[in-house]
């Protein structure tokens, strides 16, 4: 087990209502799990709690892995080139220069951007920028990756390629991945397990396992049981939206 929420209650200081109340769930090591839900339902808050940027009022969060956060917008530093951006977490951790250069080179080639080391973010396409952001997340040395709607700012064609790319990375990497998304197709295509955030406050998560193998292809999304699963998911989310 990589992560455990135990009866967690959280409320933002300046707001009257709780975001989550007495919430418990577990995440297994090595899995790819999606958090899905309407906006404002507490998905991103959950990420900040896991990351330690927020502390719950009650309950306990047990996280055995080191977490690396990847934001929705790439948030690359425009004054740093690709290599320097990837090295940011290593510089923060004061890793020696030669070592961090070697680590960055390996990560850049892992995300398929060899030759782009000295390029600035403005010279890269949206998909390339997200891959740099992914490499930067990996350079934190984290075993659990928190991806916060990582592809939502991309155009639909790039998004599809990036989803397939992420699956490849996940199969190759032996990391636990948590993915926040509001896109049903994305959640179904990518995850082994979907956790649906419903209710204000969130009291429990609805768990939906996805019956697809690890090495899945896009055409498998057309299987009848998957289509049914997507329909159900959309139904749940729509109920939430009309509330």
């Amino acid at each position: 087990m990589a992560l455990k929420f135990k009866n967690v209650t959280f409320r933002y200081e300046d707001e009257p209502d709780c975001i989550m109340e007495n919430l418990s769930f577990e995440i297994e090591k090595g899995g790819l799990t999606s958090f899905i839900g309407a906006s404002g339902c507490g998905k991103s808050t959950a990420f900040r709690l896991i990351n330690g940027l927020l502390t719950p009022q009650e309950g306990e969060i047990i996280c055995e892995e080191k977490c690396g956060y990847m934001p929705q917008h790439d948030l690359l530093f425009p004054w740093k080139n690709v290599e320097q951006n990837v090295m940011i977490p290593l510089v923060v951790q004061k890793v020696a220069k030669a070592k961090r250069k070697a680590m960055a080179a390996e990560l850049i080639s892992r995300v398929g951007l060899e030759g782009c080391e000295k390029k600035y973010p403005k010279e890269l396409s949206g998909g390339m920028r997200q891959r740099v952001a992914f490499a930067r997340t990996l350079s934190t040395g984290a075993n659990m990756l928190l991806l916060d709607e990582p592809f939502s700012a991309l155009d639909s064609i790039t998004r599809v390629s990036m989803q397939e790319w992420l699956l490849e990375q996940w199969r190759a990497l032996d990391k636990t991945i948590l993915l926040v998304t509001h896109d049903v197709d994305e959640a179904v295509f990518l995850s082994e397990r979907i956790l649906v955030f419903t209710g204000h406050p969130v009291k429990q998560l609805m768990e939906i396992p996805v019956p697809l193998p690890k090495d899945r292809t896009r055409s498998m999304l057309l299987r009848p049981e998957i289509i049914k699963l997507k329909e159900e998911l959309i139904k749940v989310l729509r109920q939430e939206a009309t509330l």
Partner: protein
Amino acid sequence: MSVKTKKVIGGLFGVFLLLMWQVLSMVIGNSFILPSPLAVLQNLRENSGEIFLVHFPATMQVVVVGAILSIVIGVGFALLMDASTIIAGAVYPILTVTQTIPVMCLAPVLVLWLGYTMKMRVLVVVLANFFSVTVDMYDGLQSTDEEKSRLLSSFHAKRWQQLVMLRLPSAMPHFFSALHVVIVWSVVGAAVAEWLGASRGLGTYSRYCLSGLDAAGLIAPLLVLTVVALVLNKAVKLIEYRVLKWRDER
């Protein structure tokens, strides 16, 4: 319109204005009232030894020392205000009030306190400048992207790392716009301070020519000052272009 055409048009218009000046001075026919540009250049050549060897270095000393101090003090205030909201709350309104006092008019008071010294002249330059540096720099630091800051926090960056890695680079475009203002106003401030009184300097020389009703001699050092400001400004632009080459050209 291409950049090149724009430059050509600007240049041609400049030449046209110079010609108009020349013609106008010939029509007036009185070099006490309006000396021709050629007369100014003539004067500059005749007195070049005095202007460039005695007065120019004196003025440049005030400009350079004043500009550097303005930047150091201005950035220092901005960093303090950025580090603490209490300091910002205390200092910002007072700085704003002091800026409503026209510094150039305050200069005689500085003469009263400091005499006709280099200190006085540098202080005039600093007072004319440091506030705009503080405001620009403070705005720059404050405009740092919160999301990027949170991202750095998620990497467990310390406060000083946030400052060095994120806040200062974010403020660089603001810093350079302040620098452009500082260059121009340092030259203006130095000249004004020298007008008030100094043993040497282009302002002093200009004033000396005024008392002799030598209009060409009055304008000649101003021409030098203008060229100095232009050259310094261009130098800052070149550095800015190199340092900020990461910026979107939008």
